[in-house]
């Protein structure tokens, strides 16, 4: 039940934030973060003790029993860690957002969307059923789309939002396919049950497909190469969003998925190669990208990419040591990166720019922010006694134990050195170097609401660095969940003079060298070509757009003549296909005789048809067509279908009346088509007509199995209390079909209405 309360609180917060989030004032500052904080307390106070003692908290209720989808939740150590980060950092982000958004007219939207995201992310952390997981997974993509495109009047922001949605959405499709295959291979939809049959799935013939599809989902979400390009572009979101979604939480969802599924599909040779290769490329790419940037947020986005790559490498190797290192790194990163983004937001807010080339000497005007940035930067640089230091130490400790230690360690050192230099570039230089020139605004300290969150996170990063054993229980639980068996963990800040410590020193040296040489890296900035995968994305998107335009122009020409031509041609092709499938023209015989009445009607209809085609008067054509309609009604009546006959007569009458109304206002009845078009149309109609007739004759010789009409007639009075079987079929036996039809009628009426209204608009404009 706890899981439901949690989701309930966060879901209820969405409309509340939408209603009360607009008015800037103390009330908003106090009330708005409350639901997130309550969720955090619920997790820390009630869920955590249970998870830590018994391994997990689960809840299950029936949702769609027909499809075997249950609302199954299972909060284990990993989920707890993620949920705590989401709600904890979320609370601080909302407080920060209060100061950042100020009196922005749409600030309520931002808060509501942040809560929607928090709801989705918490659900994701707890979901046990694969489909429930998938629903929350997609919900995070959708909320991310709205948040990146928050400045919706900016075309760039809209394009970037769409890019993130398309990339993560396509990954999501692959993920769903992977989930379905996985559930079939493991014969269960529950992650908690699948972890028990991991070996079976790893040995399954479809393991390769499962792994690739699931990893596509994880890689797109966590911005791994070659899908990394959307993350830097997502920086067009407001800064609280970048701090929250695109560094601390959402992009970790892919990593979380890999943690969670590690016991099910992880640890094979293929897994290791895919993850370490992709992770390495992403790590180095992210670092270089960051070094080439001068926009604070883009620099930080580069380091986020690098860290996501590093985590993927560790997961790829996947020993106990690596998993532990990845968990420590993940926590450390979430704390310092959210802080640094908020700092970047404050700098942007108070100075009017995020350009590192002009920022300098801000310690004078923003002393608090400067100190906060320094603390977070130290953690990011991996200096003791910050938690980032532990992350780096444990990473090195894990990498040197691996068989390919020299290569991996080298990549990690280069990556960490770049992350370190980026920390200096983004979080130390703007505050502590000399003034670089005038800023757009006279800088002053950010309000307290924008200092509290980052300060708390930065100090928190230092606190758990000094007292790492406070994290032991949570790390043990998370590690046990990721490994699939129970483990005790103890982490220490000081581990003596060992190889990792020396590697750290080497990293520091390398990083500072990069900082010293960064001016020539920066000189590349304007010269970096757009990434290849970014260009591929653009090419594909343009291609789809062009195709859509082309086919719309080809099919939706707006000429009634073309529509009828297309419809008739398609009918012709389909009829020909059907006839061919049922053996062509063989076996056709004309049986039965015509009554005298039918002969007369047939003659009248044929004459009317010729008249309608040949006449030069519109009214004559109209009446001739009406005559054909009444002839059809007579045929219906002759075959004892009074309902059909009556309907036909009424429809025919109303059509003629309505048409007669309009007929005087229509332009002269000319022959707009050329001779060739006429011949083409005539040929098409005649061939289609003949073939339809043949098809009808043919259908009489075919045996389609027993007809249902006898049964329906029998049931009509007995079961449905109606003697008119046509009506009973319409309103009872096949009522849902009828319902569909009247819905179509309604839609058509709305279409006619909008057509008439739009014409009216054109006329009005013309009159002016």
């Amino acid at each position: 039940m706890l899981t439901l309360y949690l989701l309930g609180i966060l879901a209820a917060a969405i409309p509340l934030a939408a209603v009360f989030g607009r008015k800037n004032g103390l009330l908003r500052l106090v009330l708005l973060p409350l639901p997130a904080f309550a969720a955090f307390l619920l997790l820390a106070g009630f869920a955590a003790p249970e998870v830590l003692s018994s391994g997990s908290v689960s809840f299950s209720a029936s949702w769609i029993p027909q499809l075997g989808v249950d609302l199954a939740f299972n909060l284990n150590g990993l989920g707890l860690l993620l949920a705590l980060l989401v709600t904890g950092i979320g609370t601080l982000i909302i407080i920060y957002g209060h100061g950042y958004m100020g009196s922005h007219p749409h600030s309520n939207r931002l808060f509501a969307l942040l809560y929607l995201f928090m709801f989705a992310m918490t659900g994701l952390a707890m979901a046990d059923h694969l489909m429930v997981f998938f629903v929350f997974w997609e919900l995070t993509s959708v909320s991310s789309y709205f948040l990146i495109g928050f400045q919706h009047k900016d075309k760039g922001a809209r394009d970037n939002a769409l890019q993130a949605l398309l990339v993560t959405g396509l990954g999501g499709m692959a993920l769903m396919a992977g989930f379905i295959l996985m559930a079939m291979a493991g014969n269960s939809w529950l992650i908690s049950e699948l972890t028990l049959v991991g070996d079976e799935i790893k040995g399954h013939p479809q393991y390769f497909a499962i792994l690739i599809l699931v990893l596509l989902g994880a890689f797109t979400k966590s911005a791994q190469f070659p899908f990394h390009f959307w993350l830097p572009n997502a920086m067009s979101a407001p800064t609280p969003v970048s701090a929250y979604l695109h560094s601390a939480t959402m992009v970790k969802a892919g990593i979380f998925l890999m943690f969670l599924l590690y016991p099910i599909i992880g640890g094979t040779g293929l897994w290791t190669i895919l993850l370490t290769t992709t992770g390495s490329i992403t790590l180095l790419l992210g670092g270089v990208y960051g070094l080439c940037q001068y926009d604070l947020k883009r620099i930080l986005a580069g380091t986020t990419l690098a860290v996501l790559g590093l985590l993927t490498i560790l997961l790829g190797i996947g020993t106990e040591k690596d998993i532990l290192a990845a968990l420590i790194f993940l926590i450390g990163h979430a704390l310092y990166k959210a802080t640094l983004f908020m700092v970047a937001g404050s700098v942007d807010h108070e100075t009017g720019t995020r350009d590192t080339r002009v920022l300098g000497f801000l310690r004078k005007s923003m002393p608090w922010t400067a100190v906060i940035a320094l603390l977070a930067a130290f953690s990011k640089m991996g200096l003791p006694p910050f938690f980032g230091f532990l992350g780096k130490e444990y990473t090195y400790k894990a990498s040197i134990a691996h068989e390919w230690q020299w290569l991996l360690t080298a990549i990690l050192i280069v990556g960490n050195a770049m992350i370190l230099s980026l920390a200096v570039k983004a979080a130390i230089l703007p505050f502590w170097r000399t003034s670089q020139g005038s800023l757009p605004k006279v800088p002053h300290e950010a309000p307290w609401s924008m200092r509290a969150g980052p300060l708390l996170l930065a100090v928190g990063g230092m606190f758990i660095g000094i007292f790492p054993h406070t994290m032991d229980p949570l790390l043990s639980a998370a590690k046990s969940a990721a490994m699939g068996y129970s483990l005790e963990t103890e982490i220490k800040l000081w581990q003596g003079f060992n190889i990792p410590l020396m590697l750290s020193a080497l990293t520091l040296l390398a990083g500072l060298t990069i900082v010293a040489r960064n001016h020539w890296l920066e000189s590349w900035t304007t010269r970096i070509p757009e990434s290849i995968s970014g260009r591929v994305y653009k090419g594909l998107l343009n291609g789809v757009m062009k195709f859509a335009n082309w086919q719309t122009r080809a099919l939706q020409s707006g000429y009634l003549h073309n529509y009828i031509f297309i419809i008739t041609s398609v009918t012709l092709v389909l009829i020909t296909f059907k006839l061919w499938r049922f053996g062509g023209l063989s076996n056709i015989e004309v049986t039965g005789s015509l009554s005298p009445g039918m002969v007369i009607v047939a003659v009248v209809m044929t004459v009317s048809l010729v008249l309608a085609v040949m006449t030069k008067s519109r009214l004559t054509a109209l009446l001739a067509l009406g005559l054909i309609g009444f002839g059809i009604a007579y045929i219906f009546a002759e075959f004892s279908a009074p309902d059909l006959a009556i309907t036909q007569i009424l429809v025919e009458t109303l059509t003629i009346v309505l048409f007669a109304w309009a007929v005087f206002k229509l332009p002269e009845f000319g022959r707009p088509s050329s001779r060739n078009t006429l011949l083409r149309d005539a040929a098409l109609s005649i061939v289609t007509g003949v073939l339809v007739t043949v098809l009808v004759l043919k259908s009489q010789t075919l045996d389609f199995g027993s007809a249902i009409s006898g049964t329906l007639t029998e049931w009509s009075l007995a079961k449905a209390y109606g003697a008119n079987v046509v009506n009973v079929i319409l309103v009872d036996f096949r009522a849902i079909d009828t319902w569909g039809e009247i819905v179509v009628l309604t839609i058509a009426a709305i279409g006619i209405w909008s057509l008439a209204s739009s014409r009216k608009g054109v006329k009005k404009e013309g009159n002016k």
Partner: protein
Amino acid sequence: MSSAILNITARFLGPVLVLLSLIVLYRGHNLPGGGFIGGLIAASGILLIVLAKDWHGLERSWWPNPLLLLASGLAVTVLSGVIGLLYGQDFMTGIWLPAMELPLLGKVKLGTPLLFDVGVYLVVLGFTLKCAQALGEEFWK
């Protein structure tokens, strides 16, 4: 387009047609008729009146708004389906009241299929009137 003959015919025939449409609607379950036919007859009755007078008749406030007819028709059909659910049956299962003896009408059986037919009647009527209205706006303004 006003003619005395048309005017007088319409004044009598219009209401008669609308009344006839209701009868056709009601008897449809056992004899030829039903919502589609009833709706079309009602539409011809109303259009006859409008034709005899002028187009603006269709827009007067006392006149049924076609879109409202469409919407309420759909709502009625959904309602008739939901009643089955309330009785613990599947959506759109027919539910019948016990037969009653009423003066004039004789033995009367009321059930959700009839309600569904009323919805069809309203939608068909609304659709036809909407088409007429759109044409009228197009050509007579």
